[in-house]
């Protein structure tokens, strides 16, 4: 494993997940979340737990990158990263469908989370695939 490339890919993925999460879930889906206030922490409570959110995103980005490097790193590239990210987005969407059946989420929230996560992970896959490239072979 190329540790330097791994580290750069991991950091770039984390930065992307952090910004995307703020824009998609924090801004774009803000009204949808407000529709069921009992399911979300109040602002002050959320701010008190903000560090846990960031740590969680670091953990996601680390293992997302590690799985790519372990499974696809030797020849994945951008296309492999996109495919892997898309599959991971669908996996998380499956988990959200289960949550929808047991938690009183609205269909708007379910749809927003699923679409957001597919975009988020597919784009993360492209980032990781673009940074963690196999060494080019010289003729």
């Amino acid at each position, binding site marked *: 494993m190329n540790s330097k490339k791994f580290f750069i890919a991991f950091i770039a993925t984390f930065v992307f997940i952090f910004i995307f999460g703020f824009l998609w879930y924090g801004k774009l889906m803000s009204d949808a979340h407000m529709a069921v206030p009992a399911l979300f922490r109040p602002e002050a409570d*959320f701010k008190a737990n903000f560090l846990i*959110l960031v740590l969680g995103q670091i953990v996601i980005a680390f293992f997302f990158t590690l799985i790519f490097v372990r499974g696809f790193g030797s020849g994945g590239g951008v296309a492999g990263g996109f495919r892997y990210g898309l599959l991971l987005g669908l996996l998380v969407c499956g988990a959200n469908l289960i949550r929808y059946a047991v938690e009183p989420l609205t269909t708007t929230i379910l749809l927003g989370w699923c679409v957001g996560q597919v975009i988020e992970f597919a784009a993360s896959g492209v980032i990781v695939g673009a940074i963690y490239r196999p060494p080019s072979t010289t003729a």
Partner: protein
Amino acid sequence: MKRFILAFVAAYLFMFVWGWLLNGVVLKDVYAQWQNLFRSREEMMSLFHWILIGQALLILAFVMIYASGFAGGGVMAGIKLGLMLELAAIGMRMAIYAVQPFPGQMIVYGSIGGLIEMSIVGAIVGVIYRPSATTPT
């Protein structure tokens, strides 16, 4: 393709039974303490098909990721993939904990259950799905 379908069906059946045992039996009393965060039993039953579809989608994506990048590694590769995916899921649970008022106890139990579940899912897929062998000419 046959092994892919077999791996999918076996892992799916395991996830269904495990999900019922863990959430419906073992953690039943824990969930009962936080009823306000969950749908009523009647409502859940009316949406039960979404659980089946969600589990199917999750397992399908798992087997596809395994087949794309980890096939050939056998049981250990399956277990490693399951563990890595679940560790990423623990990151997601941390993010969920920060924004939704779930008790920490529920996040911890869910994460421990998830680590066991995904390791076994990985082992099942690793045992059953093997890339087609190339025959020497």
